[in-house]
C-alpha cells in the first residue's frame, strides 16, 4: 500500500450527509461505497439515495438499523440506485417508491474484505472507499484528532455504527484511517472521524466490504 491515500482529493467522495435522528448509518455507508465504485469504474460522481434503501430494502430495518451486506443484495435485486435528487432523504421510512427507470447506477456483486489492515489499505488505494462498521465508543463526544480508545472500552465485538473509510495516512507519526461519517459537517472534523490504524481499533477491520461494479 502507498504510505498515504485520500479519495477525497481524487473526487471520489460526495459531500458529508446527515442521517438525522435515524439509525440509517448502514445505508449511508453503502451508498458512499457505491458512489466511489461508480466513480472509479464509470468516471462520474453521483450522490446516491439512502432513502431508497430505507424504503425498499426489506431485509433491513430502516431507522432501526441494517447491514451493508443486506443492502448490497437489495440494490442488486431492485436493479440499482436512484440519485439523491430523484429520491431524496426524509430520515424515516416511507412506502417504497423506487423506479427502475430512474436508477442511475447498478452493482454486480459485493465482497467481504480482508481483516488485515495493511491489505485493507492496499485494497482501498486501488479499488476505492470501503464500507466499514465499528464500535462507536466515545464518538458521542469526539471533536477532532486521531481516536485510539482503550481496547476493552472499544471492543471489536460490540460493533454498532457503519461508516465509510475514504483514506489513510499518518499525522505526526500516528497512523490513521480517515472515515466519512453521516452525522453532518458540524460533528468531528468537518463530518469526518479519524481513527488509529493498525491496531484493529474499535473493530474497524471486522466488517469491511464493498460493492463490485463491472
Amino acid at each position: 500500500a502507498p504510505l498515504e491515500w485520500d479519495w477525497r482529493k481524487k473526487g471520489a467522495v460526495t459531500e458529508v450527509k446527515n442521517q438525522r435522528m435515524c439509525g440509517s448509518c448502514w445505508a449511508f455507508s453503502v451508498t458512499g461505497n457505491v458512489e466511489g465504485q461508480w466513480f472509479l469504474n464509470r468516471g462520474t460522481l453521483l450522490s446516491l439515495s439512502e432513502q431508497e434503501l430505507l424504503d425498499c430494502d426489506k431485509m433491513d430495518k430502516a431507522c432501526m438499523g441494517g447491514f451493508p451486506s443486506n443492502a448490497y443484495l437489495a440494490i442488486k435485486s431492485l436493479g440499482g440506485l436512484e440519485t439523491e435528487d430523484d429520491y431524496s432523504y426524509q430520515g424515516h421510512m416511507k412506502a417504497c417508491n423506487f423506479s427502475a427507470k430512474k436508477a442511475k447506477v447498478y452493482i454486480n456483486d459485493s465482497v467481504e474484505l480482508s481483516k488485515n489492515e495493511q491489505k485493507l489499505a492496499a485494497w482501498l488505494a486501488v479499488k476505492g472507499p470501503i464500507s466499514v462498521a465499528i464500535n462507536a465508543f466515545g464518538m458521542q463526544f469526539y471533536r477532532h484528532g486521531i481516536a485510539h480508545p482503550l481496547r476493552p472500552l472499544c471492543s471489536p465485538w460490540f460493533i454498532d455504527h457503519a461508516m465509510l473509510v475514504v483514506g489513510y495516512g499518518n499525522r505526526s507519526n500516528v497512523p490513521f484511517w480517515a472515515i466519512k461519517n453521516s452525522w453532518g459537517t458540524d460533528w468531528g472534523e468537518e463530518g469526518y472521524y479519524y481513527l488509529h490504524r493498525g491496531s484493529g481499533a474499535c473493530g474497524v477491520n471486522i466488517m469491511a466490504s464493498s460493492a463490485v461494479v463491472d
Partner: protein
Amino acid sequence: TSANPYPWASGAEAWEPLSPELLGPARFALDAYNRGRAAGTRAGLGAVRGRVRRASRGSLYSLEATLEESACKDPMVCQLPVSKKTLFCIFEVLEELGKHTLLRRDCGPVDTKVTDLRNETFNSVLPLSSKDPLPEEFSMKMISIFKNFVATYNRTYESKKEAQWRLSVFTRNMVLAQRIQALDHGTAQYGVTKFSDLTEEEFRTIYLNPLLREEPGKKMHLAKAVRDP
C-alpha cells in the same frame, strides 16, 4: 431496549454511588469477572456507581466500577510484595424474575499515571460523585458552557424542567468526556458536541445501529487481494 422519551420526568436514571440495590448486580458482575480465576488472583471491588432502568419484567443495571487485582498471577513465583492493578470496568446486568444476566463487560487497565492525572483533573474541575454537592464555581461554569451549547446548536426544550434535566445530562456528559479523554491513547479531543445533551441510551437508540452487534449479516465471498501493478 428503547430510550425513555421523557427521562427528565421520571428521574430514574441518575447515577448513584453503590447502594444496597446495586450491590447484588455489582457482586454478580464481579463473580462473572472472577469466574475461572484461581483463589488469590481474583479481583475485588473498588469504587462502584450505577443506575437502574426498570421495565415491566425486570431491571437493567448499568455499573461503572474499579476492580483491584493482584498484578501477580502466580503467588509461588512472586516472592516480593506485589502491587495491585486497577481496572476500570463498565458492566450491564439484566435482572429478570430474580435471575441476573451479564449483558456487557468492558474492562481495561487504568494506568496509574493516567489515573492520577485524571483524578487531578476531576478533583480540580469536576466533582465525580453525583451525591457530592457541586461547587458553585463549577455549576456556574457548566451553566455558561451549556448556554453556549444551546445557542450554538439551536436547542429548544419543551419546559424548564426539561432544560434543567438536559443541563444535568450535559454536566454528566462533560465528566464522561473527560474520562474518555484520559483513557484515549491517540491525539483525539473529546468534549462538547451536538450530542452532548443526550443520555448514552438516547444516543445509542437514535443514532447507532444495534443490529450490527446482534445478528450476523449475509455472508459475502472474500475479495481477491489487489496486486502491485
